[in-house]
């Protein structure tokens, strides 16, 4: 049967184009499975919208987010009495445009989310690979560190670290990474434990492949889909943490707009001007919800086994 296979030569197809075609084919395949989940598509759209908002903030925000105007304080949203289209979501206690601040605030949330997850995933995946692959004492050591970190409540640990290091953007990233790598580490370790017993790993060893090749080239590609899913879902969590820290005044510092600190500021005026805290709060809610829906859709499309 195999011997009778017709030879279809593709002259002139270079290595780069081959890889590109292969990538495109698997991408289309993925999209076909992904789009079946309507909610995930909605989630993906929301995430894209928020990203676009952050990227395009200087062009789409109607006002300067830090420009105070004491004659326009506490303007209500457009649909309430006294509201106007100039400030569709109203103004805050300093007369700054809330819509503009929400648009600019997307930057803080997305940057922190992306940077923290990028660093934490790199560290966590490496640690998980080493831990699961070598096992024994290395594994025991790494997993005890993980256990210790897991035993701290996330926010309390982050607040403690920020108290030591001082508030600010880069310190906040560090404080979140400090514990965030634990999640990808655990996930990858578990997957590696299963993958390293596969016969293809033994086959690689039989032809003389070294540990590094087996870990990064044979095992990692097989655990990558769960890494992507976990990373996506954790972005939502990190954004919540960023909002919490900013709410507590430890994160993004004023006057830079951030959703968390906007909610904090709005808290004082909740009875006079509810829109101060409500709209940034809604922004957090919608973004986190969107990411979660997207993440679950990715999980189902990339790796049906994970859907428990």
């Amino acid at each position, binding site marked *: *049967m*195999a*011997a009778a*296979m*017709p*030879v*279809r*030569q*593709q002259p002139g197809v270079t290595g780069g184009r*081959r890889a590109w075609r*292969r990538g495109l084919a698997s991408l289309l395949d993925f999209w076909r499975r992904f789009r079946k989940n309507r909610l995930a598509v909605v989630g993906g759209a929301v995430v894209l919208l928020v990203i676009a908002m952050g990227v395009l903030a200087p062009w789409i925000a109607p006002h300067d987010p830090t420009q105070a105007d004491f004659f326009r304080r506490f303007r209500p949203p457009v649909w309430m009495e006294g509201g106007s289209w100039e400030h569709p979501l109203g103004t805050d206690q300093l007369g700054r445009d809330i819509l503009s601040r929400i648009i600019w605030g997307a930057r803080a949330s997305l940057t922190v989310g992306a940077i923290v997850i990028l660093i934490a995933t790199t560290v966590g995946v490496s640690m998980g690979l080493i831990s699961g692959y070598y096992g024994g004492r290395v594994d025991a050591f790494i997993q005890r560190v993980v256990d210790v970190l897991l035993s701290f409540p996330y926010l309390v640990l982050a607040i403690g670290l920020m108290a030591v290091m001082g508030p600010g953007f880069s310190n906040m990233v560090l404080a979140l990474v400090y514990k965030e790598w634990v999640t990808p580490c655990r996930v990858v370790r578990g997957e590696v434990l299963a993958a390293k017993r*596969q*016969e*293809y790993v*033994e*086959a*690689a*060893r*039989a*032809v*003389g*492949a*070294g540990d590094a*090749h087996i870990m990064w*080239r*044979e095992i990692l*590609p*097989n655990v990558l889909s769960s890494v992507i899913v976990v990373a996506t879902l954790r972005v939502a969590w990190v954004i919540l943490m960023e909002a919490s820290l900013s709410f507590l005044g430890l994160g993004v510092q004023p006057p830079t707009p951030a959703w968390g600190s906007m909610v904090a500021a709005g808290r004082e005026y909740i009875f006079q001007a509810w829109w101060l805290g409500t709209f940034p709060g809604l922004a957090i809610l919608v973004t986190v919800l969107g990411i979660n829906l997207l993440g679950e859709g990715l999980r189902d499309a990339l790796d049906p086994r994970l859907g428990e």
Partner: protein
Amino acid sequence: MRWTPMAAAGAPPEPLVQVRGLKQYFPLGSTWVDRLLGRGSRWVHAVDGVDLDIHHRETLGLVGESGCGKSTLARTILRLYEPTAGSIKFAGRELTTLSQMEMRQMRREMQMIFQDPFASLNPRRTVEQIVGLPLLIQGVPRADIRRRVAELLEKVGLSPSHIDRYPHQFSGGQRQRIGIARALAVNPRFVVADEPVSALDVSIQAQILRLLQDLQAEMGLAYLFISHDLAVISYVSDRIAVMYLGRIVELAPAETLFAEPLHPYTRALISAVPRVGSRGQVRERILLSGSPPTPIDPPKGCRFYSRCFLKEKNETCRLVAPDLKEVTPGHRVACHAVAGTL
């Protein structure tokens, strides 16, 4: 038994692979309860003192029931496991003392074909990456690898245009051909085939077996061919070794083994092979009772003692492990009753 290391040095009758007293024990791991009770860790005696020669261009069949240590023996010979004791010589070179680096060099000479064509190919790697890996490790320049992989695919009966496909795009038989191409990529002299056809449909089995035989003739390969299927083993093997619970119990040229099996275990095995066209001839069917003893702390004497049906068996069998003795030229058996050492 011919065992004269001094006579080595390129003398033609020297076997390609020479295994002596090979043991492979796996620790069971002692729990804290064991330590509390003063028990040491226990061991699975997967391979327990095996002597074996594999000659140039020969197929040595290794047969035995599942769990008897066939695969472990094969993997230990390739040093995929570190042997507990014993010696493995490949073309006169001792393998057990080689460093990992030196061993990597040696892997150019000795390769393996795996049982499960689905598990043994990484689903996330292309045929080029899978078959080209041994070449990459042996330092073949990347530019040459692709050309060489295409040649190999043709050699094993696959289309070179499939080079960029992933394993899931192939059938079981085709996948096994990919596994064979991988094993042959570096022109080895010795190939371990661990149940290479047992996961395939019967119609495909014959194709793969023929391919293996053609490649053997073409490339001058020596095979250690593992199977639990006597029909397959008798079809491919020059000599056959029968394994039982970590030991070789009988070793003979293929025809001899089937014509006059000596060890009671071999006799039981062969009597169980269904034969077409033997209607009318009443053949004695030997039914063994019970199952083999556990390889954890195996019996001291003959391992087959608990299931042996010979009338001659006695206390010697129970207490003294029989050696693999040559009873007629080329025919060795480990049985007190047969070798007359009762």
